[in-house]
């Protein structure tokens, strides 16, 4: 597995090439990219600051990926999460999974995102037209994680 927590942007094409790795046992690739939106709960968002818990964040992501690898037949998994100051339309997170068959890659990728959202220590602080605010955890994310 490849886990990175970093400020710089990632290059999706590079990440896909690294995951596929010219391996002709790969039949399926599923990728997720999350982006900063320009509005949240009806309020305009000018930017956000992503805080994390160095050390625990990486361990938490590795544990989530290890669980996905146990549950599904995957070949390689990458997770990249950005931290620091980001702006609308910036990519925040990349999750990529390659597998022989598509059902494994879809399930593992969505599982990782649902767990990341509820388990991995990241916090978003938005700069909005009403000032700064810490984003509140969403009940729908807890529900999404409980499905698995």
């Amino acid at each position, binding site marked *: 597995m490849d886990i990175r927590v970093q400020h710089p942007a990632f290059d999706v094409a590079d990440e896909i090439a690294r995951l596929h790795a010219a391996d002709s046992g790969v039949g399926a690739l599923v990728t997720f990219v999350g982006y900063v939106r320009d509005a949240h709960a009806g309020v305009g968002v000018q930017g956000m600051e*992503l805080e994390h*818990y160095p050390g*625990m964040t990486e361990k938490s992501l590795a544990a989530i990926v290890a669980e996905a690898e146990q549950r599904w037949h995957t070949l390689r998994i990458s997770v990249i*999460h950005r931290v620091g100051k980001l702006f609308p339309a910036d990519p*925040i*997170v990349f999750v990529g999974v390659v597998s022989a068959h598509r059902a494994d890659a879809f399930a593992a990728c969505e599982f990782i*995102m649902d767990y990341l959202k509820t388990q991995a*220590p*990241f*916090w978003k602080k938005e700069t909005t037209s009403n000032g700064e605010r810490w984003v509140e955890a969403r009940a729908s994310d807890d529900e999404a994680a409980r499905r698995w």
Partner: protein
Amino acid sequence: MKVLYFARLRETFGLAEEEISGPASVTELLELLRSRGGVFAKELDAARPFRVAVNQEMAAMDSALQDSDEVAIFPPVTGG
């Protein structure tokens, strides 16, 4: 033990990290912090949705603690 605060709690307490000795469990540490009153009593009220990690793993409120542990207290996570 090293006690770390993140995100809204770090800002509200005006504190990222402190050293505390003595508490033998998360419950005892939280009691000690609440006994300071003010924002500590308010934010760490049992009805508030904060989370606790011990040695960088999510921990239950009755987890045992040693002075060599790293404890972190933070709001529910909101990454992704």
